[in-house]
């Protein structure tokens, strides 16, 4: 029997992770708690079994994630027995950055992009594994699996290294770093099919449930804690919703759905008529916003 596409994708990702561990001086895996991170963690457990993954997990925490995400994160790190590093931009905290007040651009720049750079510089990580996929966004579609960053963490899309066969160039100049995307060739559908096949644990927010939400600017926002200001005329209502992507709760829209199991989500994905990024508020800021953020050092 020839390998299925999921078996091929899994083998490719494991190959990439092992190559990183063999060649990097100080690798790290970004862990954002979402479904792609869940799959990455599962692949890493497989790639290095019976040893543990040869890198710590790094969560760049904005302090605005859903509460269930924090619970899930801490449970996973404990269960898998992997070192978890959490970094918060303390300067951003002191500035009182609040997505409800400052908007998504400022919040994302200070608490994610700048925070990530701080964490990478502080620890001196030279190779950073992350779960971005090429089907997510048009500028990602053109990024290499091993993506070189300058000492300032910048991506230069016009000067990418050729990437031939399965031979990855992991060499770099002092100060440069490499971001590596083992899930480059996976689609959102592949991720869910794999979660189904391998029973990969994911945050319960992905499954439909009655949750208190308010409708704001066309998005359904979950009232996750009392930091959320309610405007005149707004009152949370209980609706059957789930999340297609997870991020900071003020910036992540829920979708109406009854899919409360992984197979139901896989079925729903097949019928989906919108892309997963639609629920993410950061992408709508301006055209080319993701490309600009990536050049500045965002993932």
């Amino acid at each position, binding site marked *: 029997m020839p390998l299925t596409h999921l078996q091929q994708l899994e083998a490719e990702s494991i190959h990439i992770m092992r190559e990183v561990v063999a060649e990097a001086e100080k690798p790290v895996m970004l862990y954002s708690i979402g479904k792609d991170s869940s799959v990455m963690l599962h692949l890493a457990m497989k790639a290095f079994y019976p040893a543990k993954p040869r890198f710590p997990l790094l969560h760049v925490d904005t302090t605005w994630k859903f509460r269930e995400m924090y619970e899930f994160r801490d449970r996973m790190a404990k269960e898998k027995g992997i070192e978890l590093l959490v970094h918060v931009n303390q300067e951003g905290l002191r500035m009182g950055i609040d997505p409800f007040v400052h908007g998504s651009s400022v919040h994302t720049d200070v608490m994610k992009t700048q925070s990530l750079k701080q964490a990478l510089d502080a620890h001196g990580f030279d190779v950073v594994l992350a779960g971005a996929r090429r089907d997510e966004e048009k500028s*990602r579609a053109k990024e290499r699996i091993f993506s070189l960053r300058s000492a300032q963490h910048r991506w230069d899309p016009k000067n990418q*290294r050729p990437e*031939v066969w399965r031979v990855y*160039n992991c060499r770099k100049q002092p100060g440069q770093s490499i971001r590596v995307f083992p899930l480059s060739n996976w689609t959102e559908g592949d991720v869910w099919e794999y979660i189904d096949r391998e029973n990969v644990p994911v945050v319960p927010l992905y499954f439909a449930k009655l949750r208190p939400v308010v409708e704001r600017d066309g998005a359904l926002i979950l009232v996750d804690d009392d930091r959320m200001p309610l405007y005149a005329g707004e009152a949370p209502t209980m609706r059957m919703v789930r999340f297609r992507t997870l991020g900071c709760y003020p910036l992540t829209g829920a979708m109406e759905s009854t899919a409360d199991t992984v197979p139901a989500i896989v079925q729903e994905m097949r019928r989906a008529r919108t892309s997963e990024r*639609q629920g993410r508020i950061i992408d709508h800021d301006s055209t080319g916003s993701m490309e600009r953020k990536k050049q500045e050092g965002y993932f």
Partner: protein
Amino acid sequence: MPSRRLLRFITCGSVDDGKSTLIGRLLYEGNLIFDDQRAALEADSRKVGTQGGDLDFALLLDGLMAEREQAITIDVAYRFFSTATRTFIVADTPGHEQYTRNMITGASTADAAILLVDATRGLVTQTRRHSYLAWLLGIRHVVLAVNKMDLVDYAQARFAAIEAAYRAFAAQIGLPHICCIPVSALKGDNVLTPSARMAWYDGPTLLGHLETIDVDSASLEGAPFRVPVQWVNRPHADFRGFTGMVVSGTIHPGDRVRVQPSGRESRVARIVGYEADLDRAVAGQSVTLTLADEVDVSRGDVICSAESPAAVADQFEATIVWMSDQPMLPGRPYWLKIGARTVTGTISHLKHRVNVNTLEHLAAKRLQLNEIGVCNLAVDRPIAFDPYRDNRDTGGFILIDRVSNDTVGAGLLHFALRRSQNIHWQPTDIGKEARSVQKGQKACVLWFTGLSGAGKSTIANLVDRQLYVRGLHTYLLDGDNVRHGLNRDLGFTDEDRVENIRRVAEVAKLMVDAGLIVLVSFISPFRAERTMARELVGADEFIEIFVDAPLAVAESRDPKGLYRKARLGQLQNFTGIDSPYERPEDPEIRIDTTSTTAESAAARIIAFLEDRTTAPGR
């Protein structure tokens, strides 16, 4: 859940063949574009589109701001779609001058290639170039999509003529599986659904064909077993697992294997799985193997079937595709990465360059960006390999610049050169140590580098005299003097400068072996060659002395009147004027000649030698 198989394909075509329209059509008609993407496409088409009011499918693929502004495609874009029976990864490569570099990136992992031709224009130069590159990279399935059939009234005769011409050309280069399909990407004919306007065509639609291409996984699984070892897994003393991807063949516990290049043999004990061990693994799987015996296996070794192991050699004939703005220079060492092994590789001889448009062989001394050549290649230690035609993973390699660390070339091994098997290093009874001791010294190389007129020869001469007075055995190799004899056939082009340094480094190495303290006074402008000399001689015995003079100072001294000539245009390729000097980054000794006299410089070097006790004073 139906299990689907993966097909990776590449699309090639020149600028106006309608490539983006075709891919856009595939995704659009296959309901593979989401509503919000479609809304964005409609908005973008109105704003920056080039199709009047119609949807501009190119905008789906051109994702970078610079691409949209300039209406060009910069890099390989990957798109994904799936049907009920198959999952597809499309590498879309742009058609402009950077083409070769991009197409190699996209084609290296592809199972199939779609070549677009415009029915109104027929085969063009680019069709031949893309076909050659597809053949070179070993893509076995080529689909010739004859597009814009709507513009030739869907005429069967037009299609038949193009198909006949292409089949003749494909036979000439040896492409195995060809399928020609008449389509109109704009109108949708024969893309997803059979065209009523071309009832004369009874072959498959484009998507129908892509769904049925046989990617030969059976023959890959039947090929000899190979696992390039990526990483040795040692969680505790009782477990030693060798991890890597099975790039060809099939393996079971108990199978005999040979580890190349060492040649040691053992049996597979376990194929370790996450939940349970496996009783079989096939090409395409990432595995962890344990062996029955304690054999030495490390990253870069290749675990092979014992019956038909990979060959081992250190000299090859290879095809090189050059992908850097800096030219490939024969003689210059590069990092060569093949599978999981990185060695030093040098092009010893460039046999010819291939004109990818006409397939002609042309004489060449170097390869420029996007050029392809056939060469002899030497690596610094034996490696396991298969010819690229037999195995992409054990026969394909990349070349990495040792200074910038950029990927500068891709290569395909053809075969081992016989000389590599027939010439062996002849061990001699009296070695370097014995010869050094006899002379009461420790041999080394003092490598003086710097601009012409910096003072290298003056300082080297002083050092040489002082060592001589102390009764030490030295020899001074001077750039100008060596060019009178050994290197009289070399000029001052970059290629010749590289060869110049290679020969001198080899001579210096022999002299160190003879127990001498060797002073080399050469401009040696390129970092890569100085690094080569250091590695050839051995880092412990190589002392790099940077005689540092600003260009203006060296030029004002101009002891031989060479700068004046160069400025007048009477001397070409003069270092510092129209040929670069790459300053040493970390020399053992740097002499600032604007603040140091030649005498005190010499004294510093002697002191350095005494500190290293390579020149014990007597």
